[in-house]
């Protein structure tokens, strides 16, 4: 079954595609992205390495990590802003690398739109809010005439809580608050009738009281609009509030993943434990803190071995030689650590990949 264009682009026909066998809407297999940095000597920065993950329908998955963990490279990778250095992205079971022509990319970008982080640079200051919304609808919903496009634009603004929608349409970005601008970002994504929204730290620049409003909008999109969301953040508490599953990244590796409350209440990987102990929580007593000073991860020409070993209290010599793979620690709950995950420890001689 051709993907979109061969079968003629019929927006309302749902393409007649069966959901891929694995039940994931979007999946990454061995996905890596490296950047060449440094002048003549030339180093490679390993932003993302061997990422295996999947996002199912009507699900919010939180991707958590500190700065330098590579989490902010995952969204542009999945949105095909960058080309992956290695590995594959599967959308509904089909590799996206096969999408070559503009029309195909347009369909993909309609189904997997991205919401950006900075409310002050995500909207063009020289255009009204309506301009971008109507342009998007014109490109992705050619079946709608001008009047129905405006009606749809006002509908999506209403869904994300921007009222009165007609007035918002004619306003310029400088007339809106940070929270309102991020809601416009979600409205824009919603107007393409997406399957999965990639939200790259959508609330990290907002005040706490407004942040909650946005998280509730994301929850409502999942319930009422049946949209999955990949929520990328460094704020674990907000990840717990809104996500079904959580993925923890450190130095380009996915170190732990599983249902949110499993991972947060009995973390397996030492980094996840360190992260959770450092999160300031007014209601809980202050956990005994480690002496860890929190220096940035080493991701330039890292080589083999676990990249947390320099900070890890449980590091052994296996950790220095073999890069740990994700292994199950509980039903649906995996972690990439030789020490804390029960089960056979790979021989040192047996080279990891």
């Amino acid at each position, binding site marked *: 079954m051709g993907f979109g264009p061969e079968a003629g682009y019929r927006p309302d026909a749902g393409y007649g595609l069966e959901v891929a066998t694995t039940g994931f809407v979007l999946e990454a297999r061995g996905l890596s992205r490296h950047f060449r940095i440094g002048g003549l000597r030339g180093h490679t920065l390993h932003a993302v390495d061997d990422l295996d993950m999947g996002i199912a329908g009507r699900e919010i998955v939180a991707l958590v990590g500190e700065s330098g963990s590579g989490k902010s490279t995952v969204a542009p990778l999945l949105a095909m802003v960058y080309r992956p250095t290695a590995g594959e992205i599967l959308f509904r079971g089909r590799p996206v690398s096969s999408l070559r022509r503009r029309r195909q990319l347009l369909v993909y*970008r309609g189904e997997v739109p991205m919401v*950006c982080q900075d409310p002050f*640079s995500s909207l*063009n*200051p*020289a255009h009204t809010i309506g301009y*971008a919304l109507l342009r998007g609808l014109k490109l992705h919903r050619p079946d709608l005439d001008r009047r129905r496009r405006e009606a749809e634009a006002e509908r999506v603004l209403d869904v994300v809580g921007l009222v009165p929608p007609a007035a918002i349409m*004619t306003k*310029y970005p400088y*007339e809106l608050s940070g929270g309102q601008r991020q809601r416009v970002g979600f409205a824009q994504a919603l107007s393409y009738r997406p399957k999965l929204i990639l939200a790259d730290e959508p609330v990290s620049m907002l005040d706490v009281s407004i942040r909650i409003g946005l998280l509730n909008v994301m929850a409502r999109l999942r319930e009422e609009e049946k949209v999955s969301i990949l929520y990328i953040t460094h704020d674990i508490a907000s990840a717990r509030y809104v996500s079904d599953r959580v993925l923890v990244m450190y130095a380009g590796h996915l170190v732990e993943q599983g249902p949110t409350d499993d991972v947060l209440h009995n973390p397996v990987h030492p980094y996840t434990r360190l992260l959770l102990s450092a999160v300031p929580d007014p209601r809980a007593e202050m956990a005994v803190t480690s002496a860890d000073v929190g220096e940035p991860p080493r991701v330039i020409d890292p080589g083999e071995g676990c990249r947390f070993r320099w900070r890890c209290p449980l590091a052994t010599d296996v950790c220095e030689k073999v890069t740990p793979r994700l292994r199950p620690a509980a039903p649906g709950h995996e972690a990439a650590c030789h020490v804390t995950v029960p089960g056979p420890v790979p021989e040192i001689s047996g080279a990891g990949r």
Partner: protein
Amino acid sequence: MSTAALPGGRVSGAKAFWARFRAGPVGGLARAIASNRKATAGFVILAIFCFLAAFPGLIAHDNPQAEIYQPTLQPSGAHLLGTTAYGQDLFAELIYSTRESLFIAVMAGALATVLSVIIGVTAAYLGGLVDNVLSLFTDIFLVIPAFPLIVVIAAYSKNGGDPIIIAVLVVTGWSYGARQLRVQALSIRNRDFLVAARLRGERRWRVIVSEMLPTMTSLIVAIFLGTTLYAIVAAAGLQFVGLGNPDSLSWGTMLYWAQNNEALQAGSPLWAIMPGVCIAMLGAAFALLNYAFDEVSNPALRPVRKRRK
């Protein structure tokens, strides 16, 4: 300054248009000129010169080039500024010269600005090798002293008249603007709304034209003003040293003939002073407008009134 909260529901045509115009980038420019004393002064001077360029006949009734009067007359009722050594009426020549001086400057300014935008924005948007080559090219043209280059080119193309002067000014005038535009385009390039536009499915050229350029209007206008100012001074300089078309009707050429006839020493200083004053005033108009634009785009520069405590 923010427009009053618009009434709900469909907004009536005219009011909506004005509200959007006032709030939009173009409205912003108009409002900036009106609110800033320096900008208004510059605008008024420019308006006067434009009027003179459009309808010289209304002010000066004599034929500017007819050599029919007594030579080197002092200013009198008939000849407000006296006459030249060749018997031309100075006042008429001065007024009629406005058109060509203004035309050369504005044309050169506009074309150079277009070149600046094309090179500057493309270099920033495409990046990589293209960016390196184009910015090296820009820096080279910026560093090579413009006037000697103009003089050499003009000399080779012996008094080719206005088109040559305009071409020369454009070739040497675009680089400063291109450099400024590239810097601002680079800062905009990795802003999220451009990535969002690409992800929306916009084509590459459309992203540049309908997303990047509208946010750079105030800088483009500032560069046009700056380049035109440069063109005014350079064109006058060229004509003054005799590299322009000697019998063209422009202030620079008037200065050339005044200098040749030792006007200052020979008792008719106005012949040299007046065209110089006109060039200076036109230049000042563009400079004032340009300076006011800096204040519009960077509020920190606005004059600080000492609070009387």
